[in-house]
């Protein structure tokens, strides 16, 4: 078995073993923490599709988490608790929003694309704030978690395994996508756009499709997130969220399968450490003062990400 396969096996095994271990140790907190990380990992995996493999610097990915979360929250508000319906709407609505935003944005390139995706995310954020009916600025509680036949999401361990399964499924789907003909067009266009045009690829429809797929997956992550936090707020869509998810993708190493997962774990664990575990109170209260420069340094010196380091060790 290759080193990578071994690493993956150990990692998945550890994740599977976590709930019983955490229960035995009487530390349910870890289950919560890892579950949250895995939900963001799904968002990072979806962003990796368009950013890491496609080269589309989308600063608006948090929007889809918001759309997905609001879809579930609003349906629950009106008493529609069927998980399949809620999550179906979450995914469908995010896909539609991605289609609308992508259709306008993907025609542009470079700096324009970054600014436009950022602007549209902000637009959705303001939209969320203005929805007084659903909590406006403060957000609102989720009436009850999504209901599925056979699965009780109110049980922390069950919910955890659902998230784990979905994360592994996302990894697998993206893996198939990026190696398919569809994915190759994206990767070729990122690698050398003039060359890909010259051999006859028109990247726009493929990029748009990838954008929609990533948006849909982001919507699923949003549905999971709102179930996890039991609370719905426009902050899901705040543009700083988008930046954080981008960091999760970059830190782990773009255009790799494991990168977004590693990056999400690294980013959120560091964030958690700074804001909750470090014994110095000043650091805990003002953790962004330290995270900020850490992020700057990581961009300046740590470009290839964690996956890049591992690959170097293997050579």
């Amino acid at each position, binding site marked *: 078995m290759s080193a990578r396969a071994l690493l993956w096996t150990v990692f998945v095994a550890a994740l599977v073993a976590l709930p019983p271990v955490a229960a035995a140790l009487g530390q349910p907190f870890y289950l919560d923490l890892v579950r949250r990380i895995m939900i963001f990992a799904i968002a990072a995996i979806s962003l990796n599709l368009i950013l890491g493999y496609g080269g589309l610097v989308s600063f608006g990915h948090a929007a889809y988490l918001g759309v997905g979360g609001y879809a579930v929250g609003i349906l629950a508000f009106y008493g529609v608790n069927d998980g399949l319906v809620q999550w179906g709407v979450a995914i469908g609505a995010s896909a539609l929003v991605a289609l609308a935003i992508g259709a*306008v944005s993907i*025609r542009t390139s470079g700096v324009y694309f970054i600014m436009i995706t950022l602007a549209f995310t902000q637009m959705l954020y303001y939209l969320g704030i203005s929805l007084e009916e659903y909590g406006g600025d403060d957000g609102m509680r989720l009436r009850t978690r999504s209901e599925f036949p056979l699965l009780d999401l109110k049980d922390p361990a069950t919910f955890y395994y659902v998230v784990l399964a979905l994360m592994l499924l996302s990894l697998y789907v993206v893996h198939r996508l990026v190696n398919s003909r569809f994915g190759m067009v994206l990767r070729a266009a990122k690698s050398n756009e003039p060359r890909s045009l010259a051999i006859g690829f028109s990247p726009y429809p493929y990029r748009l499709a990838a954008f929609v797929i990533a948006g849909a997956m982001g919507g699923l992550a949003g549905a999971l997130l709102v179930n996890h936090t039991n609370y719905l707020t426009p902050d899901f869509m705040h543009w700083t969220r988008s*930046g954080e998810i981008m960091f999760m993708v*970059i830190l782990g190493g773009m255009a790799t399968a494991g990168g977004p997962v590693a990056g999400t774990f690294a980013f959120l664990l560091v964030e958690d450490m700074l804001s909750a575990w470090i014994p110095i109170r000043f650091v805990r209260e003002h953790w962004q003062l330290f995270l900020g420069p850490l992020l700057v340094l990581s961009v*300046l010196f740590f470009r290839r990400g964690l996956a890049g380091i591992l690959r170097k060790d293997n050579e």
Partner: protein
Amino acid sequence: MTAILFFEQLLNGVQLGVTLFLMAAGLTLVLGIMNFVNLAHGSLYMVGAYLMVAASQWTGSWPLGIALALAGTLVVGMAVEVLALRPLYTRDHLDQVLATFGLILFFNELVAVIWGRASLYTSLPSYLQGHVELLPGSIYPVYRLTIIGIGLFIGLLLWYVVTRTRLGMLIRAGASNRTMVAALGVNIRLLYTVVFGFGAALAGLAGLMAGPIYSVQPGMGELILIQVFVVIVIGGIGSVRGALVGALIVGIVDTLGRAFLKPLLGHVISAPAAEAAGPALASMLIYLLMAVVLALKPAGLFASR
């Protein structure tokens, strides 16, 4: 909706537009000439506002406060440029975005550490308080008129520099063909530093003027930055003229939209529906406008490339 109210909101829109222009002018040049995405531009706006609060309180004098705040913002901007931004000029946009994002987090927390998270309110000197009667029955704040005046003056100054001086010629050339300008032997490093400093000073000016109107708080820079992006997308990267036109359009549309969309909608649909949809639609207005402009002219109205 009376004509007087419309007139006053129009002026408010111009005032917002002028503030956006000061931010956009610097940023569009940095984008066009240096091909550098600087998300931390908003932080300079915030630094200008905070330094103004501190300096005017410390010296007790408003003009002295302005001078110190501007100088301080320039120093901060240059320090950031040398320490964090220079290595990023040669990197791709993604790196620039992420690194400047890290700077935003840092600066927002820094001002919170120094001044706390609550909004600060600045007071105006007596000669800038008060109102002026512009039209019979319409009185308008002196301060906002001052901002409009200063902004238009800066606009004129920039127009003069960009079209009539050698520096301006280099700026315009650099915005449309960066490599050519470097190949001509121009000291690119110096040009970049000047352009960046320009932008930082303008952002600081916008911030210190905006303080008394919009509250001074951590994160204020990003709220306006995103509107500035909309301005630049509409106006076209690298174009100061585009920045002015775009800024005025965005400022006016946003202000008038927030003021009049709800009542206007109320004429067309039921009152409760307008109550709900009005503010939502108003906040989305400038983004929808941006989408329309993009659909027609993907590189903005006055793109230089």
